């Protein structure tokens, strides 16, 4: 082995920028509480944003339904992208149930590879469930209604997978 093959270790003495603080820090609970309060203040906006996402998801579903099964891949990819956005945002705004439903829909679309009418029905039911969460402001896990909703969606997926 030559010297040229050896890794070069580069220390970053100034943390790459002089404006980065030089001392370790403690968690500042007031700062964090302020940030969390501001994020909580975005919840009404989130509901508006996610309605737009659900409209986009609905549009991809309608586009898929209007085409032959063999040509549905593109629409389903678009549906996955929107579901992935919903999954990634719900929990940030106090709606982890949206994240859970979005994640389940992503897993179904990712793993199933099915674009038949039964698969489309699974997508539709997830869209309807998410609309219900938004309409009823089902924050957190949605309580009993939220758990029932998730169980119902899981049962649909199990049933569809068995066909």
């Amino acid at each position, binding site marked *: *082995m030559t010297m040229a*093959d*050896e*890794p*070069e*270790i*580069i*220390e*970053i003495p100034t*943390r*790459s*920028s002089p*404006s*980065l*603080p030089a*001392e*370790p*820090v*403690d*968690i*500042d609970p*007031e*700062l*964090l509480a*302020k*940030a*969390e*309060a*501001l*994020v909580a203040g*975005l919840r009404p*906006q*989130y509901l508006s*944003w996610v309605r737009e996402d659900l409209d986009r998801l609905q549009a991809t579903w309608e586009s898929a339904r209007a085409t032959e099964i*063999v040509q549905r*891949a593109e629409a*389903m*990819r678009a549906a*996955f*992208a929107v579901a*992935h*956005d919903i*999954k*990634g*945002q*719900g*929990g*940030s*705004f106090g709606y*982890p149930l949206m*994240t859970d439903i979005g*994640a389940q829909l*992503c897993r179904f*679309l*990712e*793993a*199933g*590879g*099915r*674009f038949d009418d039964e698969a489309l029905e699974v997508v539709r039911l997830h869209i309807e469930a998410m609309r219900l969460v938004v309409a009823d402001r089902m924050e957190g896990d949605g309580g009993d209604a939220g758990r029932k909703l998730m169980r119902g969606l899981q049962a649909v997926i199990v049933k569809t997978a068995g066909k």
Partner: protein
Amino acid sequence: MSDYSFEHLNFLIVDDNQHMRTLVRTIIYALGSKRVMEAGDGADGFKALRQFPADIIICDWNMSPLDGLDFLRLLRNAEDSPNPYVPVIMMTGHTERQHVLQARDAGVHEFLAKPISARSLYLHIRSVIERPARFVRCQGYFGPDRRRRQLDIAGKNRRLICPRPARPAETDLQLQLG
């Protein structure tokens, strides 16, 4: 309370989702910095760095046309990169081990799972500040040291005797086409 402040830090947010950018910007503002620039994809982010000396980049994975990994590779390896050493926090919903390793091998500092919270983002920002990673340049890799823990390991240093394998081919999440 600490007198620590993010006031003088420059943050670049690279995400194609306006809602996520708003969320991240809101948290950063609350943490004390008003020096925030936004970019809608990796190409815009790279361009923004020419004008904006970011101290920390918070970047999404899924973006088009230039996604988070491509942006990261460009940032670390391009000859005209404005700052190859800048810390990058990668946000993503892809939390499977394979994706974490991909991001690490592209030169990410921190991996932040979505959905994010004020606390999780805060802790990751603190982490890149408090634990500045030294950089490593070796065959097939340039970026922050991927060894996060300093351990006394008996035997030979494999870093010196065995170059890392080439980065695996990108296998971003794809739908089965049926």
